[in-house]
């Protein structure tokens, strides 16, 4: 009997429906997976076979073929396991095939039949909702994430026997009630009012937060460039619904954190200058979003800008211009959203003290020029606001608000 079940796979930060067709026929006993399955899915065959056996669902020793559609798209996630198992169970008439209609199945099977969460549940839930599914079965640990959007009955599944009992109508699984996420401790919001002696830099940060501009801070080390970046985030309003969904999906696909509600805080990412191009842009065998996407709708802070590899600096141009980064794969390319604001910081020269009021630069002019040229041209062309951050001078502290500040501004 030919039966169908439904799952989904993640491509970039969007999901697409995967239809699983199982058939039992004549031929040598065995289980064959057809359809462009990645290595992860070939392991799925073993997991599904073991889980079914462990749960006492003895399948007839017959030829079984499982077909995954669309055939031309790579399906990476072990989250498809559950749908493969259910299609097989239906083809053996262990569960009624019609119970699999309108139900999206998402989870990785352990060898003993328990269900494990798979990354990207929010993307899958969004896909299921948009494609008209009425319910979504996921591992218990994923239920909160699946219920974030609403509009779907979310079935938390502990293990395969529990789902079989549900599908047979023996013992229904109750839909997971959307949890109000536990109130997060409000992020410590630093305003910039307490940053003295950095008048221009404060203005630059204010302009950045207000108008969405890209900013470059340059100046000697130790004047608070990094501190300014961290404070800048406190000036942003919370993400609106649309932006929050985009950001939460990216975080979920990256497996960054447990998703129990939409991310409302504006992201700040600060990769070290040793980051690889793949780490910055995304990619890798599992097609993970990179730093530019993790900073989507937020701020990408690149300290020591000239120290980043030339490849990284070049690679920033496309997302800065397009708000999206395209990862080229063997077949076609995948776009990840990457509409971030760039906040860059750099020293004025390799030693850091060019133009310093009290210190002397020890670099020769050619070295300074080489250093500055590393970020010149196309990248600087995308900077809207550039200010020199200078060490606080006594006169900029003329109006101390309390004693400790007054002391700090005294002659050093």
């Amino acid at each position, binding site marked *: 009997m030919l039966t169908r079940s439904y799952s989904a796979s993640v491509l970039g930060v969007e999901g697409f429906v995967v239809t699983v067709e199982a058939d039992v026929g004549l031929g040598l006993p065995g289980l064959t997976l057809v359809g462009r399955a990645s290595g992860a899915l070939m392991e799925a065959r073993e997991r599904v076979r073991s889980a079914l056996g462990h749960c006492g669902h003895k399948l007839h020793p017959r030829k079984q073929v499982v077909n995954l559609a669309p055939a031309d798209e790579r399906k990476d996630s072990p989250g498809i396991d559950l749908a493969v198992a259910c299609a097989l169970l239906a083809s053996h008439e262990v569960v009624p095939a019609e119970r699999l209609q309108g139900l999206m199945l998402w989870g990785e099977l352990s060898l003993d039949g328990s269900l494990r969460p798979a990354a990207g549940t929010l993307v899958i839930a969004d896909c299921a909702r948009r494609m008209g599914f009425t319910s979504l079965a996921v591992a218990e640990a994923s239920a909160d994430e699946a219920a974030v959007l609403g509009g779907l009955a979310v079935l938390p599944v502990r293990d395969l026997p529990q789902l079989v009992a549900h599908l047979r109508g023996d013992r229904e699984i109750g839909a997971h009630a959307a949890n109000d996420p536990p109130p997060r401790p409000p992020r410590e919001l630093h305003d910039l009012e307490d940053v003295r002696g950095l008048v221009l830099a404060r203005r630059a940060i204010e*302009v950045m937060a207000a108008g*969405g501009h890209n900013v470059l801070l340059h100046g000697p080390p130790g004047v608070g460039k990094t501190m300014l970046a961290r404070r800048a985030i406190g000036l942003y309003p919370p993400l609106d619904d649309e932006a929050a969904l985009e950001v939460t999906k990216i975080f979920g696909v990256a497996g960054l954190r447990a998703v129990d509600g939409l991310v409302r805080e504006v992201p700040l990412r600060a990769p070290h200058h040793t980051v690889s191009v793949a780490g910055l842009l995304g990619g890798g065998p599992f097609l993970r979003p990179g730093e530019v996407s993790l900073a989507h709708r937020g701020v990408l802070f690149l300290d020591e800008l000239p120290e980043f590899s030339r490849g990284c600096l070049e690679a920033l141009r496309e997302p800065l211009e397009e708000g999206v980064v395209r990862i080229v794969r063997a077949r076609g390319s995948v776009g990840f959203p990457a509409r971030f604001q760039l906040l860059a910081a750099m020293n004025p020269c390799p030693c850091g003290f*060019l*133009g310093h009021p009290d210190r002397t630069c020890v670099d020769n002019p050619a070295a300074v020029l080489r250093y500055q040229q590393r970020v010149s041209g196309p990248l600087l062309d995308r900077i809207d606001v550039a*200010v020199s951050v200078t060490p606080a001078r006594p006169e900029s502290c003329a109006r101390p608000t309390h004693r400790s500040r007054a002391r700090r501004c005294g002659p050093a």
Partner: protein
Amino acid sequence: MRTRVTRARARQLARLRGTPWRTNAEVPAAAGSIERLCALTPAAERLLAATAEHRGWSPRTQHRLRRVARTLADLADDDRCPRAPAAEADVAQALHLRALPEAE
């Protein structure tokens, strides 16, 4: 300071209503959008043009200056209409906020 930022964002949203953009930085140069949505007073236009000529700026750089001037006008502590063009003082401050590192 956060209050000013919040108000500036609201002014942008009011001005950009009906467009796909939410911030001044997103307004594209194409099809006159930037001249319409980041308008300058005649005096401000003259200052921008003169500086651009003096420093040999590309149109792209001029557009960046224009957007920043618009944001500075949105941040201003006055109750000017969000559609009023940005003033000469806003352009002057935007120029001040464009000090790229230089080999001295």
